[in-house]
């Protein structure tokens, strides 16, 4: 076909640039941010659908920007993994922008938010798309920095003392992480003369410089993914931001740094890994799960519970490192742990964003997020409570959700690799998640106190957005065959063979 070479480029161009142009337009036009967001969504959506069709039909592809091939030029890479993350991001952003229309839209009372939220949200989206499509470590750095700066700004958007402190704390950790990442990239460039991931895969070996670089990159990205013990910035930051911003921050931002970790270890440097570092990463993930869950049990504010839950759930993702490649003769498939981690990242993104949006709607209705105020709210906001319950099911890993599919894949890989400890941790984490998510749900279902104030009304259309997201997370589990086959398009060999 004549435009077969053109349409991948157009799709990628739309996906990358539409949010950025939208952000510029939103900054210029001020109050019309919501409408511009809608236009951006449409444009990006067209790009994403085209991308999905292309990858499903022709497989993964790369695109050299400007026609300049690496190592001099920058290469974009679109495979199943990238497309999966981009689609999920679009769904989540769509729901968030739908809910944010009221507090930050034209009729908003607070003016700073109405002017700044839309450009920041669209910039965040653009940065995420850039990260997911990059095939080059430096491009990833730029995208990561853009993402971090915008995320920090979103944390501090309300301008209160605590949120500013949380934003500054986040910024300190994040800047440290970025600099470590840049240091690692510099060392890799000095050793090999290129930062393109595909080219690095052939050149990276076990030299001391490579090991230091890998350590620096991993440490920096781990700080950004709030891996234990670098997690202390996350709960105040995510609970201090307004709810739509928290949804973006918890659902999408840590996934980007994890995505870079996946790309780095499985595609750029699969040979460096030894059992020690893999077990260390997995072990820190397990600690994160336990620690985050235990702290979540003690919280009395809904947003803090959800934020600590993010700390715990991000720990699951790090199990992919020790478990990748766990197969056995009895299991008919391979790459279980890798696919499981990806499934978990995608379903957690949707479920966590949905939860934060529900929390935002509840705060709008009762004015605060302290747990006792939530008593009996199922009568006033049944859709919201139902969405929260569905999201909770995904986070607990109960069937038939995407979280269960992810848990099943990782548990099977764990037993197949002969390391049942990780499977046990997954079960324990699921039970702890049930414990800390039970409290808000039980309170929602209890009878309201006789003297409690009546909750304000929230429109059904806005309550539908988190419900759609939570349903999408559940559907990812029920209709998992398609996504599973899709994300495997163009997957790295190390995902199948393991890292050791």
């Amino acid at each position, binding site marked *: 076909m004549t435009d077969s070479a053109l349409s991948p480029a157009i799709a990628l161009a739309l996906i990358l640039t539409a949010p950025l142009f939208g952000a510029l337009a939103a900054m210029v036009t001020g109050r019309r941010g919501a409408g511009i967001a809608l236009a951006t969504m449409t444009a990006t959506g067209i790009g994403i659908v085209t991308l999905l069709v292309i990858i499903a039909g022709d497989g993964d592809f790369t695109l050299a920007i400007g026609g300049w091939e690496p190592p001099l030029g920058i290469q974009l890479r679109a495979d199943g993994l990238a497309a999966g993350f981009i689609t999920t991001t679009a769904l989540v952003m769509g729901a968030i922008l739908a809910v944010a229309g009221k507090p930050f839209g034209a009729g908003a009372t607070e003016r700073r938010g109405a002017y700044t939220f839309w450009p920041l949200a669209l910039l965040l989206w653009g940065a995420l798309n850039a990260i997911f499509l990059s095939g080059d470590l430096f491009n990833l750095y730029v995208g990561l920095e853009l993402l971090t700066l915008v995320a920090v700004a979103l944390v501090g958007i309300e301008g209160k003392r605590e949120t500013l402190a949380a934003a500054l704390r986040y910024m*300190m950790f994040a800047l440290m992480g970025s600099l470590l990442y840049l240091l690692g990239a510099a060392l890799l460039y000095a050793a090999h003369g290129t930062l393109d991931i595909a080219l690095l895969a052939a050149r990276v070996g076990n030299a001391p410089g490579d090991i230091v670089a890998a350590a620096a990159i991993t440490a920096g990205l781990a700080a950004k993914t709030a891996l234990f013990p670098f997690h202390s910035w996350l709960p105040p930051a995510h609970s201090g931001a307004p709810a739509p911003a928290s949804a973006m921050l918890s659902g999408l931002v840590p996934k980007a740094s994890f995505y870079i970790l996946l790309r780095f270890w499985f595609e750029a440097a699969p040979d460096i890994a030894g059992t020690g570092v893999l077990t260390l990463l997995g072990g820190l993930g397990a600690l994160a799960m336990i620690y985050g869950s235990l702290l979540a049990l003690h919280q009395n504010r809904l947003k803090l519970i959800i934020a600590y839950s993010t700390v715990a759930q991000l720990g699951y993702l790090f199990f992919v490192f020790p478990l990748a490649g766990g197969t056995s003769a009895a299991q008919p498939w391979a790459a279980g742990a890798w696919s499981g981690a990806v499934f978990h990242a995608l379903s957690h993104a949707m479920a966590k964003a949905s939860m934060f949006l529900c929390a935002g709607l509840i705060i709008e209705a009762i004015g605060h997020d302290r747990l006792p105020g939530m008593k009996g709210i199922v009568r006033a906001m049944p859709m919201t409570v139902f969405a929260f319950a569905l999201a909770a099911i995904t986070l607990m890993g109960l069937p038939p959700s995407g979280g269960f599919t992810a848990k099943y894949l990782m548990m099977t890989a764990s037993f197949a690799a002969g390391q049942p400890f990780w499977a046990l941790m997954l079960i324990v984490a699921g039970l702890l998640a049930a414990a800390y998510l039970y409290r808000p749900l039980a309170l929602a279902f209890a009878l309201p106190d006789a003297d409690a104030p009546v909750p304000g009304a929230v429109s059904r259309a806005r309550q539908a957005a988190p419900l759609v997201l939570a349903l999408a997370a559940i559907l990812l589990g029920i209709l998992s065959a398609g996504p599973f086959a899709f994300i495997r398009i163009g997957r790295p060999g190390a995902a199948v063979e393991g890292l050791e």
Partner: protein
Amino acid sequence: MIAPSASLLYGLCGAVLIGLGLYGFVAHRRLIRRVLAFNVIGSGIFLLFGASAYRDPAAGADPVPQAMIITGIVVALAATALALALIVAHARLAQSGALPEDETHEDGSEDAP
């Protein structure tokens, strides 16, 4: 003893700067000084990049690291600007130039940042 080449000198300089910056970040409590420390670390990393441009003298200078340094400077500029804006806004509300957990004075008063 190998004769130190120019790029090795630059690289060592960069490493020293990174070390100094790290020390500054850990040792100082006031946020502006931490931001300054970050900038020092950044400069060190840029020097490393610059040094890597001349890693093979026979091939001549490699232009790619220069592009990366320029990008890095721009990113550092944006990050510093955002950090300073946040610090000023925070200092106005909290009357302090450090984060709450780094406060040293009992009565909450702090010198000007």
